């Protein structure tokens, strides 16, 4: 069974980010990059499906500039068999729909039975690519999945998605697309052997033209980035616990009107 995992490289969650010179993107100097955490759950799940079935192929796909190779390598080090790097300046201003169109074109060429994505990339937090891919491919889709099992014949997948108030379980005929939620699994760390082996695995560079796509302006454009408005300075309430608690409740009621 062939499984494709779409991954995104994002700034490390602890990195400081600053607005760049054009005011529309961040200044990438000095940023540490990681694979978006939800995508690691997707990679892990794909590898587990392959291992459980004892055969198959896991292909990692990522869209982004040259630096994205590093994120692709870590997925190869985790155990993905090969990778595709969608690397073209035509995608510099890609919004979720442009990204989904590029990924959908690759998926049509690769024809996997299952596509896994992370619930959302933690840079722009849009959380839309999985659903938009499902739409462009005309596939069923389950969001925020907490567990899944592919049936023995590889014809369908049973997935439990997180919904308000409970888990909803569905059978999806394959091919299908799933968005991984935290809690699906515990991603493995690459082993030294995995890291060494990753250097020999194939990463195919693909340009928009290779997929028959042109440079389309994005449907959603960033017109400016701003720092957060600073929060008003806070106050540590002094005194022994009973006195501090009394004062806190008074302040919440009378000053903040929060209770």
């Amino acid at each position, binding site marked *: 069974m062939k499984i494709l995992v779409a991954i995104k490289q994002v700034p490390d969650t602890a990195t400081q980010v600053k607005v760049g010179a054009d005011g529309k993107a961040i200044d990438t100097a000095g940023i540490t990059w990681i694979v978006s955490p939800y995508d690691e759950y997707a990679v892990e799940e794909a590898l587990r499906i392959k291992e459980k079935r004892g055969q198959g192929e896991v292909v990692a796909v990522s869209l982004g500039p040259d630096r994205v190779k590093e994120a692709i390598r870590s997925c190869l080090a985790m155990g993905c068999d090969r990778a595709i790097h969608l690397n073209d300046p035509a995608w510099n201003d890609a919004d979720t729909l442009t990204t989904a169109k590029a990924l959908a074109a690759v998926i049509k060429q690769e024809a996997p039975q299952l596509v896994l994505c992370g619930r959302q990339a933690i840079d722009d937090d849009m*959380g839309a690519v999985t659903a938009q891919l499902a739409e462009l491919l005309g596939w*069923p889709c389950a969001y925020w999945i907490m567990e899944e099992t592919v049936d023995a014949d590889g014809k369908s997948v049973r997935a439990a998605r997180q919904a308000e108030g409970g888990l909803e379980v*569905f059978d999806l005929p394959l091919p299908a697309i799933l968005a991984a939620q935290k809690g699906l699994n515990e991603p493995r760390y690459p082993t030294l052997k995995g890291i060494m082996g990753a250097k020999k695995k194939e990463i195919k560079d693909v340009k928009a033209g290779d997929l028959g796509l042109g440079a389309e302006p*994005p449907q959603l*454009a960033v017109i400016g*980035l701003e720092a957060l408005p600073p929060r008003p300075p*806070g106050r540590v309430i002094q005194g022994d*616990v009973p006195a*501090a*608690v009394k004062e806190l409740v008074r302040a919440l009621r009378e000053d903040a009107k929060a209770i």
Partner: protein
Amino acid sequence: MPNAFWCFVEDDRQGMPKKVMAEVLGEAARLAGGQPEAVWITDKASDAGLTQLGEWGAGKVWVLENAAFAPYRSEVWVGAAAELAAKESPRAIFGPVTSRQREFVARLAARLGVGLAADCVGFALEGDRLVATRPIYAGKLLAKVAWAKGPCVATLRPNVFRPADAQPGRTAAVERPAVSIPGATMTFVERREEAATGLPELAEAEIVLSGGRGMKAPENYVILEDMARVIGAAVGASRAAVDAGWRPHRFQIGQTGRTISPKLYMGFGVSGAIQHLAGMRTSKIIVAVNKDPEAPIFKIADYGIVADLFEVVPELTREFKRLLEK
């Protein structure tokens, strides 16, 4: 009506719209400078629900009611919604951030070939152009975004927008358009209900109490639940507490959990790691109780108490009880 602001209804699956719809309708009315329209895809719309939407300011409710719409499947909803959108050409399509609307609205935007702005915290009209503001990079920055063409599709973060005041007697015109209902390929197996806590849902609650590693053990969350019952709060947790197995993942607040924006957030034994702040920094009032005066959460807290939470929590519960009994 062409150029209308549409608000997709999130309901409780029992025929009543959730109260977050007052916020979505309120913001849509402000931007439209008139009455927005609600679109309700459901297997059961109730008269009480239609009345509620009218009182919250919907001028019209489009009711798409069919057994095939439950349980929610994007492949079924999107076809019906897109057919109506093609006929009616709304100017904007809004929904609240909920697990299903995040998927549905994104898929609908792809069907319509338009941009999507998810999890917005602000909107402005610049001349004729709608501009949305949304947090990015774990809420460290705000992005202003605009659409190349309409309809402008967006989801709105709960508890951020001013809710419409319910006006008793105000009613919505109800229209039940005929739309074709796409066949489903995914089949429903079962729903596993979570054990009911009797407390509000984390994402929608106006007050959230959050317990971190400082809670020390799963059984200690009882003291937060006691306080929560007194003030009508939800109880969440940090990732440290979730990863320790003290609370299920659905209660995690932060970058890899829920994003919340309550009127009041109170953290107990939470250090305030950047990834935790990502999920709660747009809260209106932040209270921190931590025994370490250097804990980073104090940097963004409006009120802090440096003390042992096990002394503070029972005292605070008593004090809230006293206040609310008055």
